[in-house]
């Protein structure tokens, strides 16, 4: 799913940059700006938003169901810390896996731009890839991966928080899932700006 999103975004980005660049004879910068936009911004943000919809809601629903069916209380009475058993593994998994997904999304997104640029914009494939790899710096990729890890943390914590504090039966679980998705999306976008501003400075 993230791969599909990335390939289409990379393709659309290449088209838009080509159109914009043509206005001041800068069409040749398509590969440079595509790789910069994908690795620094669109790869992590889009992957984060997609996973906020899937994973954050899923975690909130799972933990929320356990809350309203008293499974979390039962866990406490059995001397098992719900945080260690339910929340910590999910947070750790999200923090570790999202950067891997974003790395894949970066590659697929760049390839989306490559396909459009070579297929319909008349770019030479070898030149496009050489410009891409010569322009991108390791800090661009690292910035994207740092963002991804932070977004993974936000997604899992928001889902777990909303689920853990849910109440009111099935209605409450649904509300928790909705709140988790909305909260995670807003936080991802806000934190994305802060991380970018921090790295730029």
């Amino acid at each position, binding site marked *: 799913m993230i791969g599909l999103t990335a390939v289409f975004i990379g393709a659309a980005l290449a088209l838009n940059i080509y159109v914009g660049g043509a206005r001041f004879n800068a069409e040749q910068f398509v590969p440079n700006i595509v790789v910069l936009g994908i690795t620094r911004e669109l790869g992590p943000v889009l992957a984060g938003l997609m996973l906020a919809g899937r994973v954050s809601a899923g975690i909130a629903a799972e933990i929320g169901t*356990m809350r309203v*069916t*008293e*499974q979390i*209380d*039962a*866990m*406490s*009475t*059995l*001397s*098992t*810390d719900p945080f260690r*058993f339910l929340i910590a593994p999910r947070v750790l998994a999200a923090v570790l896996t999202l950067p891997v997904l974003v790395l894949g999304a970066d590659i697929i997104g760049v390839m989306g731009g490559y396909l459009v640029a070579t297929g319909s914009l008349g770019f030479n494939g070898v030149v496009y890839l050489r410009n891409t790899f010569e322009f991108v710096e390791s800090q661009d990729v690292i910035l994207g991966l740092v963002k991804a890890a932070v977004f993974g943390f936000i997604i899992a914590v928001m889902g777990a928080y909303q689920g853990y504090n849910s*109440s009111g039966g099935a209605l409450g679980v649904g509300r928790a899932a909705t709140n988790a998705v909305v909260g995670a999306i807003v936080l991802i976008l806000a934190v994305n700006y802060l991380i970018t501003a921090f790295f730029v400075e």
Partner: protein
Amino acid sequence: MRRWARTSNLSASRKKLRGRFVLDGVDLDIPAGRSLVLIGGSGQGKSVTLKCTLGLMQPDAGQVLVDGEDITALKRSEREAAMRKFGMLFQGGALFDSLTVWENIAFRLIYADGVSRNEARERRDRNHEARAPRA
């Protein structure tokens, strides 16, 4: 008769009820070896009383003494140890639906006591053999 658990001036409010006190100054003696039944209508605070007594919910004020120890003043880890003195059967069963039946039964052994799954299985088999009716 030895007193096992005692609540003193227990009061708890729940935010969902707009700050209305569900429990207000509840004094309850639970003697060892005796059964105590709480009866009341829906929303009268039976579950809140139980959860406060077990340490699942923190009262706004008051004490809960279990074997003379105030569990409301305990840290989280100490409260977990105090909970080992209780067993609770939840209204809806509260079975862990992501686990198998035997994992539900062996939950405390595996996840709280750190017994390996193989060891827990062996104990299950030993108990099963010991309790199986003889032909």
